């Protein structure tokens, strides 16, 4: 289980995240929503070690990760995708996933065969047909799915997804939702940042709403949806009609 305790981040004079805590238990998809600039991606960066918090702790199964560098956290079972893509553009689609699988296996000869893992995961996210294309040439939606496959190849216990649904068609988005639900059913903790409200409502059991770096409210999706503060934060009542 991933736990974030009282994390605060400051950029110069701006308090990007204020005293934020959340829990992300295994076997469920947890949502993290909020208007742009609310601090969602910053929180992801803190969890994965790309951003040092001013205060607070990040715990994975009661192990304190706060001082570990990014790659050690990844080896501890944390994987993520990026809102601004970070695919390995000069490698092929297959090589992207293969590399992650190879790193998981390390130099030993034990464990799953990386090539098999890569092909399986590409099939699972629906990218098999593009396996030999250069990853840098993928359209945004497919590149997001590639990042997802790459993250899964590290066999994480916690998966952080930063807007995986943007750039996807309605059909693809529905398939993504199915995939997330099945990952949770396999026992993974999934933390989902997403603007596609329909997707959030469908897959999340619990939603945290962030605004101006602060927790606005939390609870089951329907509860959050009905919250007037949330509606105000989104400049109107769009959420209600979802």
């Amino acid at each position, binding site marked *: 289980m991933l736990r974030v305790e009282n994390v605060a981040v400051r950029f110069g004079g701006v308090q990007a995240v204020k005293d934020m805590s959340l829990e992300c238990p295994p076997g469920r998809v947890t949502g993290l929503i909020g*208007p*742009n*600039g609310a601090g969602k991606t910053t929180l992801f*960066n803190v969890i*994965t*070690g*790309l*951003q040092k918090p001013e205060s607070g702790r990040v715990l994975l199964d009661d192990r304190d990760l706060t001082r570990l*560098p*990014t*790659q*050690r956290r*990844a*080896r501890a079972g944390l*994987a*993520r995708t*990026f*809102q*601004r*893509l*970070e*695919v*390995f*553009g*000069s*490698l*092929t689609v297959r*090589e992207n996933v*293969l*590399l*992650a699988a*190879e*790193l*998981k296996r390390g130099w030993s000869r034990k464990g799953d065969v*990386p090539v098999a893992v890569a092909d399986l995961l590409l099939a699972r996210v629906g990218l098999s047909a*593009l396996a030999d*294309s*250069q990853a*840098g*040439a*993928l*359209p*945004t939606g*497919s590149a997001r799915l590639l990042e997802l496959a*790459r*993250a899964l190849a*590290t066999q994480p216990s916690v998966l952080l997804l930063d807007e995986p649904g*943007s*750039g996807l068609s309605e059909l693809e988005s529905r398939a993504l939702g199915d995939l997330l639900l099945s990952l949770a059913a396999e026992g993974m903790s999934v933390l989902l940042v997403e*603007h*596609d*409200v*329909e*997707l959030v409502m469908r897959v999340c059991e619990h939603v945290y709403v962030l605004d101006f770096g602060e927790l606005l409210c939390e609870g089951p999706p329907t509860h959050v949806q009905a919250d007037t503060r949330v509606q105000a934060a*989104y*400049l109107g009542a*769009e*959420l209600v*009609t*979802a």
Partner: protein
Amino acid sequence: MSTLLALTVAGLVTGCIYALTASGLVLTYTTSGIFNFAHGAIGMVAAFLDWQLIAWGMPTLAAFLLTVLVLAPLMGVAVERIMIRRLGNASLEVTLTVTVGLLLLLIALADTVWDTRTARRVQPFFVGQQVTVGGVVISYHQLVVIAAAIVVPLALWAFLRLARTGVAMRAVVDDRELAALTGASPSTVGMLGWAMGAGLAGLAGVLLVSQVELNAITLTLLVINGYAAAVMGRLSNLPLTIAGGLLLGVLQSLAIGYVTISWLNQVQTSIPMVFLFLALLIAPPTRLRVGQLAPLLAPKVPGARQTYRAAAAFLVAAGVLTLVLPSGRVDSFTHGMAIAIILLSLVPMVGYGSMVSLCQLTFAGIGCVAMAKTGGSPLGLLAAVLAPAAVGLLIALPTMRLRGLYLSLATLAFGYAMDDNFFSNGSVMTQTLGLPVPRPLGIDNPRAYLFFVIAAFTACAIGILALRRSTLGRRLVALGDSPAGCATIGMGIRSTKLGIFALSAGLAGLGGALMGGQEGVVGYTDFPLLLSLTLLLMAVVWGVRTISGVLLAALFFELIPLLNGHLGAVGNSVLPLLVGLGAVSLGKNQNGIVGTVLQRTNGLRKLPALPHPRQHPDHDDATDREEVLTGAQG
């Protein structure tokens, strides 16, 4: 005591010039995001222009003002408009090649316009006038320098704090996209940054020129002191940069006055390197950056079977060529193939890993010396690989915590120091006789040796392609593409980078040893820093991501001197001019010549047939809120 004081004052004056040039460097870098390796060359051209104006009869002050306030800034604007603007979000090896290309181009131009055989002197300001302060004689010229170093930073400070444009510049430095949203134009600011940077380079060049000889290369390379000062200011902090420049000037002056180490020929040139490395050691580590660069289209990696077939065909063709080549051409072809091995060392480092070494020929030289000292046995060949690999490891180590640019700067300072202190050192090789180098493994027949070098090239090429197909190769490419992505899948970055840098230095050493074996005797001018730059540019221009690219680059390099014979006096400038132009044009086609050909012939990886590949989802508030809306309606 008075000596100490005099040395300190002299050092401070030089330090003022370093501070000025370094401020210009930082200003350009922070506003445009591109590190200008040609900064010194711009100062050099300004110094020549100043000399030219005075030679035409213009009063000294008028020439000074015209050069510093008009001509040099215009140069900066032209460079920004023509070359820099379209680089956009290009990767380090591309931006670096373009500005290094500009450096070589400007040197070649200066050497062509202002004949190098004529000695030129520029008089200092107020010749002969001086004051004595506390027993130290200070010339009026030195006072002018000090005044400039006080006035210019103050003016800069006022401009950046108070003027509207200055504030816009600071905004762009802080956050490009945000500044653009609030109405500041990053491209105007970039142009202004280049104009001011070039102006400062010109100011430093003109102030410096009466102290040193008016020589294109000397003046250009003096800027390495400026780099060292700028690194002290972490390439972004102006006050720290100025302090770094002053400190460096004083240290250098004191070292020249007091330090007498017999094995260091030129204390002067080793100080900036030492200073730079110290600055690197104390620099705070760079955070992993999120937000990646636009990747180039990568050439297809040949499979194992394809590699062996091509290698066999190449060996057969080369074998036939070895037998039928006219005797007079054997040596130059051997030399070309040895150069090809040195260039091959750039493929894993620059081509796959996007790390750029600017002193690959220095590593080649170390390999050559190592073999010359241990003999041509297999042991000697091993030394030729291991010695530069070990040195490379030491150089790369302090830069691993930092951005890739710092590695390039470290290699530049290292190559510069080695030019003056290692290769021209009496205990390494005698200046008059050079250093005899044995033929490795005792292969004395020139044709047999040619085939040996070709076989070595082929073996190394097979090895590099095998490396690329391995997990290490994937790690390397991934690292160049997205360090943040690498870290989030659990990959340690430093060991991979260090390993490849050492491997590449070792391979360059092997090439250097084989080249030395062909030449029989190497001299201290055989491994100059500027030639390292030329070779790097040729490799990138032809295509540093492919074996065929570097092979063609090496053969082209070998061909040019043959042409020179037919071109007469202009000939000597042909290579740097061509290379410079090629590198500068890289801004337009970043894949190099071989890459372009591959693109035309579908040798590059196929793109999926979709209308707009690679669009960054640039979110701003408006579109995001709209997405919420559409999500709600759907």
